[in-house]
């Protein structure tokens, strides 16, 4: 597949990617497994799991995995630029007109309401992680300690991740040694 074609496919994917990055999996399935039959369903799911376990944005990660698979480094770069192309332009355009409309009462109301929805979505996304993990003593203590470090001691997120992931791995290693 030529790079330009790859770019255009990911431009399209970026443009129809509404409602969070997780929607990308069914879209990719449709583009690459069903329509073009170049990436198997199994590989796609594996890329998705990998994309989730790497840092960064899941949708961008999985796009780069597919780009790399099809065209190496330049493929990964092309897929990444393609998937952010339309969203980037949308944000620049919307941001420049938002200030004009922010004086409008209805727009203020909508922004207020969507702001509340954002809080709900943040809570739900925490709930998703909660549901999909083994909630044992290990999970709860790391969770509580991180929360205290963040809310009471106001540590920065990066510091919290470095401190507690190191602590977690050490605890796990000690646990394995004892067995």
């Amino acid at each position, binding site marked *: 597949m030529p790079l330009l074609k790859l770019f255009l496919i990911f431009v399209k994917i970026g443009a129809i*990617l509404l*409602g*969070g*990055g997780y*929607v990308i999996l069914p879209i990719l399935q449709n583009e690459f497994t069903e329509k073009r039959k170049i990436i198997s369903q199994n590989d796609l799911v594996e890329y998705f799991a*990998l994309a*989730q376990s*790497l*840092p*960064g*944005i*899941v*949708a961008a*990660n999985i796009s*780069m*995995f597919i780009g*790399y698979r099809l065209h190496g*480094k330049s493929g*990964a770069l092309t897929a990444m630029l393609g*998937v*952010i192309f*339309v*969203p*980037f332009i*949308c*944000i*620049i355009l*919307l941001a420049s007109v938002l200030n004009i409309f922010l004086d409008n*009462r*209805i727009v203020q*109301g909508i*922004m*207020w*309401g*969507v*702001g*509340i*929805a*954002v*809080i*709900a979505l*943040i*809570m*739900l996304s*925490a709930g998703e*992680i909660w549901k999909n*993990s083994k909630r044992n003593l290990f999970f709860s203590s790391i*969770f509580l300690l991180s*929360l205290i470090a963040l*809310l009471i001691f106001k540590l920065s*997120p*990066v510091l*919290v*991740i470095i401190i*507690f*992931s190191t602590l*977690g*791995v050490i605890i*796990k*290693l000690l646990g394995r040694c004892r067995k």
Partner: protein
Amino acid sequence: MIYLLLIYEFFKIGLFSFGGGYATIPFLYNISETYGWYSVKELTHMIAIASITPGPVGINVATYAGLKTAGVLGSIVATIAEILPSFILVIIVSKLLKKYSENFCVKSLLETLKPISCALLISVGIELLKTELFNIKALILLSVLLLLSIKSKKDTIFYMVIAGVCGALIYLFNPL
């Protein structure tokens, strides 16, 4: 030099945020407190806009934050800086694929990141609630949205639309 700071901060976000676009919000909140490039209220606007435009939320919000901080060039710099770490990692991981996924240290690291991301999200949810949004109408709307999710988890857009419509109605008929 604001662009260097932007690169530094957004590269850090790209490297340290795990678990989807909303995981970047605690970092953006931290930036607003440290540098004051945008206010917390502006941050909620950015997240709202980022969620209703197409594309991954985490990237949209980086684009927007960069734009607010240093114009169009800032938005390009922030977006690229945020993706750069995973770009490098994707290439490395693609090469080592599967070799290390069963490694004990890697597995424990991934398992530890879950409760930490959970705590990061909860803490920023609480911080956002503490701002001026904190009033009885906000609490009622939030409870309704969370109750709606109990029955079945809906699309992001579903919550945005419901909340947007409710917000418009509340502001129209009952100015706060």
